[in-house]
């Protein structure tokens, strides 16, 4: 008997799988696939971003100073851009996860590209949005805390000098935190996928 016949002759059984094959069990299964987890993260991200956008609009109504309007308009524009990117990615992943019968190399590249795209969204958010968001937040915080007008607040030297410090501290912190979270969630998987892609492409 050759190895193929022996292999095909092997009929394994496992109670754990049998348990899952009982009627009704399929409906209760909880997905743990990284792309499905990513879609959940994206959905949460989109909902939170939209709520934050509503918050920006309310702040702009409460503090209608041109400086606040400028920073929050720029922040809102970038947030909309990021939400659009997240939505596009969300739709793309939905299509990917509905069809798992592509050639393996194509499937691996799609997964790798889509997860990396999520990482790029985080970086864009960090680089472009955080400086404006930090400035807007700092101005609004100062206005709300002191009860002064913005002109009066800007006459306070300490308040003005502290602004670049706040930006310099918060922006890299936010950027590093989002990068850390991304690496923690998907770093190992990206390395695993890249390794598989390389090992398949080696023979091309």
């Amino acid at each position, binding site marked *: 008997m050759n190895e193929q016949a022996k292999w095909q002759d092997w009929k394994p059984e496992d109670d754990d799988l049998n348990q899952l094959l009982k009627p009704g069990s399929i409906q209760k299964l909880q997905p743990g696939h990284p792309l499905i987890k990513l879609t959940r993260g994206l959905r949460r991200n989109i909902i939170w971003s939209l709520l934050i956008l509503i918050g920006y609009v309310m702040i702009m109504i409460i503090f209608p100073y041109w400086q606040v309007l400028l920073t929050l308009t720029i922040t809102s524009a970038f947030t909309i851009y990021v939400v659009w990117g997240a939505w596009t990615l969300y739709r793309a992943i939905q299509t990917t996860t509905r069809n798992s*019968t592509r050639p393996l190399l194509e499937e691996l590249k799609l997964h790798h590209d889509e997860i990396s795209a999520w990482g790029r969204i985080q970086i864009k958010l960090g680089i472009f949005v955080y400086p404006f968001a930090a400035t807007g937040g700092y101005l609004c915080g100062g206005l709300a805390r002191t009860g002064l007008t913005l002109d009066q607040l800007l006459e306070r030297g300490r308040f003005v000098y502290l602004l670049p410090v706040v930006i310099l501290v918060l922006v890299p912190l936010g950027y590093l935190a989002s990068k850390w979270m991304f690496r923690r969630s998907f770093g190992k998987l990206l390395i695993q996928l890249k390794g598989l892609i390389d090992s398949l492409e080696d023979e091309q």
Partner: protein
Amino acid sequence: MVSESAFLEQIRANQGIILKVVSLYAADAEEKKDLYQEILLQCWKGWAQFRGDSKFSTWLYRISLNTVLTSMRKKTKLVYQDELPETAEPVTNHIEQEDSQALQTAIRQLTDTDRAIILLHLEGYSNPEIAEWLGISSNGIAVKLYRIRQRLAALLKAPDHERTS
């Protein structure tokens, strides 16, 4: 209307495919259960789109392998030898002498993609079919298979191969 009972019936009839794929990739019992769930979910989601253009077993193999290889898995310990021992014997002899359990143990020590290739080969799929599945050239598969068989022969020849899983 998607029928759960028809789906489960098909899966039950072909559950050996899921078991074989998972047995080659799961690092431990916990991961094995996770992979069963993940494969079943992916199959269930794709079941409505299964038109019967290919055999159900082929479809199930494809989904199982794609799911396992794109899931976040623990790293399995690879303990294969880089230097293959010199041998004058045909490499297939060693493979043919082994039972499926020993073969399974040896396969688990290959890389992820090599495991997929040898698994499909052992199931009787041709090189062009495997190439189409994996999205690489048929020549690439032939080269890979040659190297995999050499490695398996070396692993099966090693006296302690049963302890290295």
